[in-house]
């Protein structure tokens, strides 16, 4: 073990990143011949092992970084390098740890799909991009991998590209992500203008350039440059815009629910566990850049996101969409964590969330998988993802039910789960933060507490609707299927789920099930100082409040959904708004899509009637001029030449006539010459 630990962490980190790349390239070359995905599986296993080794050798040890000059433009040299610190190695471990179970799960889940070779290819590409993103030292390289991640996500959302909805969804995801990429680029440009370097070590490392900056007289002064103070805020907001798109923050969250058109395993890996976390990771990386106004903005947006997404989740019937909105909501929590300055808590929540959300998705995938099988066998036409078609699944898929309940408890922040630790860390921190600021700032923790209770309620609703009561389609099924319409998921799907279920429990993260301060993860990332004083009261009251709220929520949910005592009108405005996701999509459709179309139509009209007319006018003028010049050329220039030529021809012809061998003609010529000669002699 010691000897293994002596292997250079840089080498292992490189291996972690390059294994999926090699798998991707291999599968690109192999094409359709490689259906099994075994290569991707091996690659991710290697990544997992190497990522673990890297993590072991770096965690709580000094930061290691390596830089090489990449290229030089003018006087600025761009470097390519690796940065291995607690944050990046944590991600380096987390990504393959979540990806490995998903890979194993996918072997069963995706088997038989006609495009499965593409699936493995894309999945490897995604893993490569995500791993590259976390360990890169240069913001520029980070941006490149950021784009790659987005691209891989685009490919995977549109994996079933023959479905119109999938094609639309990946387009939407890509376009919305472009907005964020723009933010990243602007942030990059501001950073470069201010510091003349994009290296993370130089910028954010110990005693880095960012710490040497001072604000003097409204000027943001760095060792190499100075600019107006507003640019500091703008840079922070630009990076936050990038994170908003990638991490699906309100109002750019619209792509994530639609992204559920991709395979469920993809949703679990990318749109729940890892890729959407990239935004949080980015913010954690560039955290020192944010000033107070930017942080406040982040916190507010995070709160809005958390609240709105939780509200929208209540109105959804599609099992995956509920989970998607819960992801958005949890990402909102993380943003609040960043916004209040406790990015360690945000990262902690990110890590725990990755596991339990992945598990939730995989369980949902298992359910959907079985529903699809049922649909194929029974020849009934129903939506396999719709909660209204489920019910009573506990009886048929007990193991899935247990695992999903575990993950749901973690999501709801039930004690003894990992979710309890991480979520409480954010909520309590926000409360302490508000306490230090006072006044209106209390809205944020109160909102968060309410959202937490709502979270418990909507995930309870999902569980109750899907797993309790009677199977709603039972009546419509044929005789043979009625006794046992659904089965437990296959073992290859269950094993990774069990693994993830284990990771949802508190011992993985902290020896003390009730205090997040004892978590190794928080220790490792521990910030030197919080901007606010800890409050012991909050540590006692808030968990109790959350727990009691959740339990009350569940009891209500149990009554409403299991005993069918639903008191609300499903067609009421509130419900409808939730179902339509607050009409945000419609709003965007009206504002941006139609606006763009109108603009395009106007441009078309302009092009058609003004530009084309100009072109036609120019064409007409040119044509007329050319016709004139043709005429001139033909009748004046050519005419002159032709006249000369024909004169010469005519003269030659006339002279030729003289030489016709006839006596009198010769005589005539002689006399003519004599006459001309005489005239010449006499007169000239």
């Amino acid at each position, binding site marked *: 073990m010691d000897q293994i630990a002596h292997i250079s962490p840089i080498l292992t980190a490189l291996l972690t990143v390059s294994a999926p790349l090699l798998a991707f390239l291999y599968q690109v070359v192999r094409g359709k011949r490689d259906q099994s995905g075994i290569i991707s599986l091996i690659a991710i296993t290697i990544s997992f092992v190497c990522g673990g080794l890297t993590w072991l050798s770096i965690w709580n040890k000094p930061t290691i970084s390596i830089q090489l000059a990449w290229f030089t433009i003018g006087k600025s040299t761009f470097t390519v390098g690796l940065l291995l610190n607690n944050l990046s190695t944590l991600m380096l471990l987390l990504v393959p740890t979540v990806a490995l179970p998903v890979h194993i799960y996918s072997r069963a889940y995706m088997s038989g799909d006609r495009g499965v070779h593409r699936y493995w290819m894309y999945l490897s590409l995604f893993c490569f991009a995500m791993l590259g993103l976390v360990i890169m030292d240069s913001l520029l390289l980070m941006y490149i991998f950021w784009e790659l991640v987005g691209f891989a996500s685009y490919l995977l959302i549109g994996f079933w590209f023959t479905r119109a909805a999938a094609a639309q969804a990946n387009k939407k995801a890509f376009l919305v992500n472009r907005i964020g990429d723009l933010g990243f680029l602007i942030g990059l440009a501001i950073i470069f203008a201010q510091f003349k370097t994009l290296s993370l070590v130089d910028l954010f490392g110990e005693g880095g350039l960012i710490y040497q900056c001072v604000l003097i007289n409204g000027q943001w002064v760095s060792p190499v440059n100075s600019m107006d103070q507003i640019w500091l805020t703008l840079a922070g907001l630009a990076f936050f815009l990038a994170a908003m798109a990638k991490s699906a923050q309100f109002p750019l969250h619209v792509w994530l629910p639609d992204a559920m058109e991709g395979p469920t395993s993809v949703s679990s890996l990318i749109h729940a566990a890892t890729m959407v976390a990239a935004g949080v990771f980015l913010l954690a990386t560039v955290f020192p850049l944010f000033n107070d106004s930017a942080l406040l903005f982040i916190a507010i947006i995070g709160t809005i996101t958390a609240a709105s997404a939780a509200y929208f989740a209540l109105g959804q019937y599609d099992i995956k969409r509920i989970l998607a909105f819960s992801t958005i909501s949890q990402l909102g929590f993380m943003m609040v964590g960043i916004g209040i300055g406790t990015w360690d808590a945000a990262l902690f929540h990110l890590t725990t969330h990755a596991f339990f959300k992945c598990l939730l998705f995989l369980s949902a995938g298992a359910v959907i998988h079985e529903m699809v099988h049922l649909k194929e066998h029974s020849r009934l036409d129903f939506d396999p993802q719709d909660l209204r078609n489920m019910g009573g699944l506990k009886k048929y898929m007990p193991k899935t039910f247990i695992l999903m309940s575990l993950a749901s408890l973690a999501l709801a922040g039930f004690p003894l789960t990992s979710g309890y630790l991480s979520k409480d860390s954010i909520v309590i921190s926000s409360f302490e933060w508000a306490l230090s600021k006072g006044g209106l700032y209390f809205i944020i923790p109160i909102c968060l507490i309410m959202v937490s209770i709502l979270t418990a309620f909507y995930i309870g609703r999902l569980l109750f609707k899907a797993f309790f009561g009677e199977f709603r389609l039972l009546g419509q099924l044929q005789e043979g299927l009625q006794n046992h319409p659904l089965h437990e998921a296959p073992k290859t799907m269950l094993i990774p789920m069990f693994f993830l279920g284990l990771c949802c429990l508190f011992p993985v993260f902290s020896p003390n099930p009730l205090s997040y301060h004892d978590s190794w993860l928080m220790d490792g990332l521990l910030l030197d100082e919080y901007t606010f004083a800890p409050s012991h009261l909050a540590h006692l009251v808030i968990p109790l409040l959350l727990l009691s709220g959740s339990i009350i929520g569940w009891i209500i949910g149990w009554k409403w959904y299991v005993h069918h005592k639903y008191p609300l009108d499903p067609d009421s405005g509130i419900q409808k708004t939730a179902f339509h996701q607050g009409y945000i999509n419609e709003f965007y459709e009206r504002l941006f899509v139609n606006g763009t179309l109108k603009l395009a139509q106007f441009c078309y009209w302009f092009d058609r009637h003004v530009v084309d007319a100009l072109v036609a006018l120019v064409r007409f003028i040119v044509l007329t001029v050319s016709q004139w010049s043709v005429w001139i050329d033909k009748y004046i220039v050519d005419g002159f030449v032709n006249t000369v030529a024909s004169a010469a021809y005519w003269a030659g012809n006339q002279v030729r006539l003289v030489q016709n061998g006839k006596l009198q003609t010769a005589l*005539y010529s002689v*006399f003519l010459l004599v*006459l001309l000669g*005489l*005239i010449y002699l006499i007169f000239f």
Partner: protein
Amino acid sequence: MESILFYAFALLAIGSALLLVNLKNIARALFLFFIVLFAMAGLYLFALADFVAITQIMVYVGGVLILMLFAFMLSNKELLKDLQDSSGSFLSMPKWQAIPLALGFLLLMIYGIMEWQQSIPTWIQLSFENNTQIVATDNNIQQIGLRFMTFYVLPFEVISIFLMMALIGASHLSRKERNR
């Protein structure tokens, strides 16, 4: 009286020549040629060259013209063709391009003559001054005979031999070939 006669002869010569040129019928043209020659002989008389005029009439009318008529008639096909063609028009202008050339020459010559009048050669001036012109009362024939036998005896002999050669040559050319 003298001038009127001169002009009459001159007009006769020129008019007949013009007509002769433009006639289609060769037989008629040849007879017009006869008239031209007579008129020319008349003009020689005004130059006090009576012997030349007589020779002209004898040689041309007696020899050349008869020869021409013979040749014309011997080329009988042409005769027939000309007789047929004459049914069309009386005059013919076959090659009009020659007219400007001829007119050009005429104008040039008349211009030359007019210019020349300003500077008459000295020997003519001298003959006027010494009054050594030929006059009508001179015995020209005797004088010519004397000159031929004295001053011009060599050219005279040469021309007689030349004339004989021409006659022999002409008869040789126009002989009938026996073996064809």
